[in-house]
């Protein structure tokens, strides 16, 4: 069954049912229970989480491992139980991105990753020490070769 929405940001979008993620608890503080993961542009490492409940709500996200090779997520027992995973579970991880006028100011929220398994997603608080709420994704042009956190946390 295909799904079409009128997104404030993208206009009319046909949603591939495979791209729909159920967030039983919504994104923290934003609510909404269904989002589509949109990969609009293969040239960027960024994707969009477009709310299917609120056409005006969309957040950029990215795979943190593209930026922080060592990025790890630790969750509290309640989360592990809720998500129904164990050590061996395959899971996708995304982090929200705060865009900015210049790339050097783009940050990602490593503190609250989004864990996705089999079409169900939860935003959890990462218990790994040192994970930043706003971790820079790009180094300054004349600066060090890597962002300010590597390993990120």
């Amino acid at each position, binding site marked *: 069954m295909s799904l079409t929405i009128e997104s404030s*940001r*993208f206009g009319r979008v046909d949603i591939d049912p495979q791209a729909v993620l159920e967030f039983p*608890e*919504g*994104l*923290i*503080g*934003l*609510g909404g229970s269904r989002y589509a993961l949109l990969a*609009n*542009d293969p*040239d*960027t*490492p*960024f994707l*969009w989480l477009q709310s299917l409940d609120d056409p005006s*709500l*969309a*957040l*950029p996200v990215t795979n943190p491992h*593209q*930026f922080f*090779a060592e990025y790890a997520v630790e969750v*509290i027992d*309640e*989360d592990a139980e*809720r998500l129904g995973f164990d050590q061996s579970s395959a899971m996708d991880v995304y982090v*929200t*991105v*705060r*865009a*900015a006028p210049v*790339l050097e100011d783009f940050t990602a*929220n490593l*503190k*609250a990753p989004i864990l996705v398994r089999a079409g169900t997603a939860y*935003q*959890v*608080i990462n218990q790994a020490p040192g994970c930043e*709420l*706003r971790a820079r994704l*790009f180094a300054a042009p004349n600066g060090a*070769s*890597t*962002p300010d956190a*590597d390993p990120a946390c």
Partner: protein
Amino acid sequence: MLGDDTIIEVLEVRGQTVRIGIDAPRAVPVYREEIWLEVKRENQAAAEAAASGELPDVSGRLGS
């Protein structure tokens, strides 16, 4: 009210300090309020910060 069954209540405001009570069912993890609020703000900021539907081409800028 958060979702259908979690209630957050301001118990007391004293100067700069606000005490908040949370009544949540067992299955919903309760994170420290300040972290939860930080993440909420960050989510909102992320939703608002990208001014258009375009995000930059960053090829060549990704680390190794």
